[in-house]
């Protein structure tokens, strides 16, 4: 957690993989809430603290991680690892994102009934809520940082609002919202291109 931060181009391939691995270990052993919470934490680590990626990269990362099937947090680890250090980076970050779960869950599974009881403790419940409240803030920060580039014009706002309301209010499966958004996006771009071509022909 020290303040020094060198750009990844200044350090060797092995050290880059190590930083990716260790950063993901730290994040996934502390962050409760899964995918979006871990993505928000990774943005803090790699964009804000280290300056290794930009907010635009994060937007592309979120776009890809949601479209490709799989666990969001792991998809984002593969993406970040690849951008910083190719395949070794992907493997390092991916391993870092699954190891803490592997260790904790195996320990919990061995003592599941007593764990289920401890979790009910009021102080533990309070601590969980505190961490998740902090994550609410982190995810809002992620949204604020991506807004300008992600939502352009009324078309963007319609899709964004549709996804928000569809998932939060009506509980629609996000996979359908994603398919719908892609279909609408492709239709919009196709229509714009056709209009452009018509305009160019009219000028002739």
């Amino acid at each position, binding site marked *: 957690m020290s303040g020094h931060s060198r750009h990844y181009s200044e350090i060797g391939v092995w050290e880059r993989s190590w930083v990716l691995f260790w950063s993901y270990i730290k994040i996934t052993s502390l962050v409760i809430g899964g995918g979006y919470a871990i993505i928000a934490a990774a943005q803090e680590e790699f964009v804000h603290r280290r300056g290794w990626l930009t907010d635009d990269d994060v937007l592309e990362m979120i776009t890809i991680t949601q479209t490709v099937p799989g666990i*969001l*947090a792991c*998809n984002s680890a593969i993406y970040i690892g690849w951008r910083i250090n190719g395949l070794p980076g992907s493997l390092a970050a991916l391993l870092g994102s699954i190891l803490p779960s592997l260790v904790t869950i195996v320990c919990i599974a061995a003592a599941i009934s007593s*764990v289920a009881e401890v979790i009910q403790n009021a102080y533990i419940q309070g601590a969980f809520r505190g961490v998740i*409240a902090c994550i609410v803030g982190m995810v809002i920060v992620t949204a604020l940082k991506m807004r300008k580039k992600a939502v352009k014009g009324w078309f963007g706002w319609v899709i964004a609002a549709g996804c928000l309301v569809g998932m939060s209010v009506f509980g629609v*499966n996000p996979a359908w919202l994603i398919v719908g958004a892609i279909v609408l996006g492709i239709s919009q771009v196709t229509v714009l291109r056709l209009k452009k071509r018509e305009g160019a022909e009219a000028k002739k």
Partner: protein
Amino acid sequence: MTLWELYITFFKFGLLCFGGGYMLVPLLSADLVGSAPGAPLTPEAFANLVSIAQVTPGPIGINTATYVGFTQQGILGACLGTLGIVTPALFLVILAIKLLKRYEKSVPVQGFLAGMRPASFGLVLSAALVFAELSVFRTEIPWGEFWKMVTGAGGSLGGFGLNWGCVVLAAVTVPVLMKTKFPFLWLLLLSAIFGAFFCQP
């Protein structure tokens, strides 16, 4: 299940769970859960698993895969289940990065980005709401009751309300992360300590 079956089953789940680990729950319950003697998981074990996976740090889908693998084949099973679920993504994410770069200017890629960018923003916001329902709000948001109130059909809020300790934490986190370099992992730890005393249910 043998180790090989475990790997293949979770490889399949990894290919099928669009929209993140949440999708794993319906897939798992369709394939692995049953009260019959031969079924890998009983409904009770499955309910336990889902609640534990959510309060344990780490990706929820990975927590789930690890737990199911462990119940079937011990530690080796936990490792293989987890590796199975992430294997497809390793290839697909890298393929997606390359395709996007290569066909950057084409209509399908431009359209994909035009749709998915705002969709991502919307989905990130709904994730914030999901987390808020687990902390800042005391219950899930009663949308149906709100609708009844707006249309004048009565409606009651029930136990819905704010957890003020959580409100403070969420409201402090945003400016701290936007304006300062305060390390977020310390922020999480401090939130846990503060929450233990001021955010109890």
